[in-house]
């Protein structure tokens, strides 16, 4: 089912701000693990539907993608993901391990390390949403997809009635800038609830 997703500049600004506050919260924890300053920034957000998602993800510039997947349930429910190209995922694992890793070591540890990093970032973003909407979200333990593109294509029909919020995220660590995407899948009803809550907030601040 196609849906016309048109949001006002104000609505987009608030959602972008929410996500940025969330990722900034996660930088404290990531910096502690790395013992060095790390910055996360979401310069752009986009809303799309499942058939448009892969076009957006091709901007990550890789044949294959990896993703950490975490489900949540609350006033609006869905799935959140942190997606990287294979190369960026390998680079992140190597940077966070604080040691030189060969390909075998990266393969052994990639899933665990990416789950932890994805968990930290997605937790922070979803916790910010949960606080903002004054709603107790129920969260699920994250899991990891190595061949995300193929996985997504296999289950694309399951997402046909989903609206997808995509935030392009830049991890600045030492001299490296690594780009990933935070993706939040919401069913249409959840998306409507989400927008209603945003509108309610806009009304509150304008009164």
């Amino acid at each position, binding site marked *: 089912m196609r849906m016309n997703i048109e949001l006002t500049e104000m609505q987009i600004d608030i959602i972008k701000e929410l996500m940025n506050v969330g990722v900034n919260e996660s930088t*404290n*924890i990531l910096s*502690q*693990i790395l013992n060095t300053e790390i910055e996360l920034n979401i310069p752009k957000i986009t809303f799309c539907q499942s058939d448009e998602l892969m076009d957006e993800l091709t901007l990550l510039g890789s044949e294959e993608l990896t993703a950490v997947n*975490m489900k*949540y349930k609350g006033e609006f429910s869905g799935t959140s993901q942190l997606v990287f190209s294979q190369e960026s995922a390998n680079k992140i*694992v190597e940077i*966070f*391990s604080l040691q030189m890793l060969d390909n*075998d*070591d990266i393969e*052994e*540890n990639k899933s*665990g*390390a990416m*789950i*932890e990093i994805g*968990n*930290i970032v*997605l*937790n922070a973003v*979803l*916790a910010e949403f949960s606080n903002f909407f004054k709603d*107790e*979200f129920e*969260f*699920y*333990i*994250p899991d990891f997809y190595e061949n995300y593109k193929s996985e997504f294509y296999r289950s694309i029909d399951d997402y046909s009635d989903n609206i997808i919020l995509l935030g392009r995220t830049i991890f600045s660590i030492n001299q490296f800038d690594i780009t990933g995407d935070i993706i939040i899948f919401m069913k249409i009803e959840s998306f409507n609830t989400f927008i209603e809550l945003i509108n309610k907030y806009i009304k509150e601040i304008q009164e």
Partner: protein
Amino acid sequence: MKKEIENNFELYDFLPIGICIIDESYEIKYWNKRLASWTGLEKDESEGKNLLELYPNLSKPAFKMRIDLMFEGHPPTYFSSLLHKYFLPVKVSENELQVQSTTLISIPKKNSTKNLVLISIENETNLHQRFQKYKQMKNKATTELNKRVEAEKRINEYVKQLEETNASKDKFFSIIAHDLKSPFSGFLNLTKILSEQLNFMTINEISEMSSALKESANTLFKLLENLLEWSRIQRGLIKHKPEKLSLNYIAKNNIDIQYETAKQKKIEILNKINEDIEVYADVSMVNTILRNLLSNAVKFSFEDGFVEIEAITKDDFAVVSVKDSGIVIPKDKLDKIFNIGESYTNPGTSGEPSTGLGLVLCKEFVQLNGGRISVNSTEGSGSIFTFTLPLSSEH
């Protein structure tokens, strides 16, 4: 409270993972049997104790900041084995600790704003050890494979060397059998005629025959000279003794050697080499190279033609070219012309004999001096042989 938790979680005693439950003051409320067996701390020694006091490593901000958030109802939190190695230090041997991945889950507590935290620890040591073993096996197999590929490469090189040696031997026999035998037969016939018919010959006939004998002897001598030099290279008897040489001077000497032959064919040899150019090379090898290239240029140029020798300097090398106005070398022969066994032979424009051995020698000597040789031949322009020699001992 403790009883209530035990009733709720006693099933966790039968799981193969370590489970611990703490409250917001880090007091241990539940400690399953698996953790007791790993740590040696029984339930009654751990429950009621403070987790941070038992395991001070958890006071580090990388752990504590995230555990603290869990009491506020934060989403499940995961600690990977790569980034932390372990959550609780548990010895598996004298020098080795368990490799663990840990998940924290926030559990609402009755009548409290703060949640309990369930800590679930998975022991990944076996998995890690198996992976390391697999990695060692893979590395060993890769090393073995590389060794075999290397050995195969060496064998192929030996085969190629043997093939070249065999080709050299064939060429040697071919020269002995044909190129040396034919002119010798001619030479013998001339001497036979001379010795048997001398009394019946006029002075002019004797003079013509002795000129023919001289030319035949010269050709044979040149061939023998090249053959001997080539044979000395093959046996490793030639030593490379480089020194500073004036290219113009060596070219001049070699032009002088070709002067008589060139004059007979009305061929002009032009030495355009700048007098300042000096190369760092073995003098007898450079002489052999120029002698052969100039001799060939004269041999394959048509009457009233010209031969030019010039040189430029480029990237620490002198680039010397010998240009003739002679017959074209077929394109498919150009890359074979310097190889023993494949070399291209063709008589000169006046029927002069040719073995192709001279160019093989040129290539060997240019390479021994650290240079390269090539040829270009086009219809109407003749052929240009170009070789390089180092300008200094740096190369």
